[in-house]
């Protein structure tokens, strides 16, 4: 009995902290949702909000495009190299294009873009929010009657969500391009044939389910980063801890949510 006490206690404590984390993020997202309309549409301060949103879109999205492109291009190329020998055995090398397009559009494009963005945008959002807490910026905002959720969280969540969807599309295309380059240079597949296979294999829902996932991933990354950043205590050390936690928690939650999505899509035949 004594042997089990510790693992039972640990599981109970971890479960409680996971539930409180999810609950806290839920509240933050609720407040963010309520604040989004007024922040972007209310006449007074609207120009500032849009400027703020634009800056965040540039910072989170635009600057991550080269890295997402490189990563997904390499993933497309790797997939082609991995599958070619097996498919050649069945005399179906051209199917490389079909498989890559579905794998990239449904799964790897959005997921890789999200993972890159969690390191790129998520960590910097958490560090920025944590520093704002530590240097009394949040209190200063409140003292100036500027709601921190409206001013800090809304632009980051909206920008990350929109930009992750956009960056995923870039990632999808670069993944296909990676496969195409390998197909053309090593597997003897013509460009036209490769593109023809890609287009004929893809259905609209492959593209849309990928985008839906990207949008949800964007909400997860930004809300986790904002929540952990705003909860910083203990000075610079706390900021470092929040940044590390954001990257780790984000990647774990992205994979877990991706699994859930795939299970649901499988059940409903999507």
């Amino acid at each position, binding site marked *: 009995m004594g042997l089990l006490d510790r693992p039972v206690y640990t599981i109970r404590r971890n479960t409680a902290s996971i539930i409180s984390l999810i609950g806290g993020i839920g509240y933050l997202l609720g407040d963010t949702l309520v604040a989004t309309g007024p922040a972007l549409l209310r006449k007074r301060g609207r120009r500032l909000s849009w400027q703020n949103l634009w800056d965040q879109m540039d910072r989170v999205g635009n600057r991550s495009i080269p890295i997402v492109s490189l990563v997904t291009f390499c993933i497309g190329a790797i997939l082609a190299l991995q599958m070619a020998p097996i498919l050649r055995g069945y005399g179906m090398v051209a199917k490389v294009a079909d498989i890559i397009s579905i794998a990239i559009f449904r799964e790897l494009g959005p997921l890789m873009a999200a993972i890159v963005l969690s390191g790129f945008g998520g960590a910097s959002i958490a560090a920025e929010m944590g520093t704002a807490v530590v240097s009394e910026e949040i209190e200063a905002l409140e003292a*100036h009657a500027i709601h921190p959720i409206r001013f800090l969280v809304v632009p980051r969540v909206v920008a990350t969500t929109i930009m992750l969807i956009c960056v995923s599309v870039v990632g999808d295309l670069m993944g296909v391009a990676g496969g195409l380059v390998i197909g053309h240079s090593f597997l003897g597949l013509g460009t036209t044939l490769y593109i023809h296979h890609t287009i004929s294999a893809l259905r609209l829902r492959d593209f849309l389910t990928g985008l839906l996932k990207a949008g949800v991933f964007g909400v997860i990354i930004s809300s986790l980063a904002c929540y952990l950043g705003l909860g910083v205590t203990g000075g610079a050390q706390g900021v470092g801890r929040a940044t590390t936690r954001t990257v780790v928690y984000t990647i774990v939650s992205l994979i877990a949510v991706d699994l859930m999505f795939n299970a649901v899509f499988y059940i409903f035949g999507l």
Partner: protein
Amino acid sequence: MPDPKTAIQVLGVTKEFDGRVILDAIRLDVFLGETLVILGGSGSGKSTLLRLMVGNVKPTSGDIVCLGKSLGQMTDKELTAYHTSIGVLFQSGALFNSMTVADNVALPLRQHTDLPEPTIEIIVKIKLEQVGLRMHADKMPAMLSGGMKKRAGLARAIALDPKLLFYDEPSAGLDPVTSAEIDHLIMDLNRKLGVTSVVVTHEMDSAFRIADRMVLLDRGKFIASGTPEEMKQSSDPLVHQFIFGLTEGPLTERRKADGYEDDLLGAREI
């Protein structure tokens, strides 16, 4: 009934954090147009009292009436209106690190007014000139010295022409000359703008320069209040020790009685 001559009435305010009493039934009046200095050692609760008056923290019991309205009974809209009628200078300046000095000062104007951008730019220049920072408008906060950060924070605090100004340790961490400059700035603003000021500090030189009236807190309790002259002539040994910064007195006696000797002897026995 709120007194028309009183800017702030602190009515028996108690504040507890995790069961620890930070402020104990504090009663205090701040009169319109005066500069009230709240004195106290570290952990005396003076900064908490300031935050309660600003409305960033809610009291455990008691109430605070600011500009004729109870902070506890204000609706969100009324609290926003109150926050736009006050200015707060935080200990660190609390500038928003991602914005230039000019943008920091412009933020409350952009958020709470419909003024066109050229008008905002003119107001920002006027406010920065008042604190002697017009030539540093385009600098980022990280490029400023401690004193300049505080002056920039002050320019932001007065951006909306507040009726009440709160200062949290305005001269902490500054050299004597810069500290005196900040004090003159406070007095100047008080005289020119006719605002009511509440200053929290433990720097006696600065306190005597700027105060119309002083209040001394110790371990969350109200100890004494009066004009600087009255405080100097106080017969209370605690007030006397604090005001003159003496090494002998009840404050040092208390520190000696905190079990230090027992702690040392106890450690030797082990």
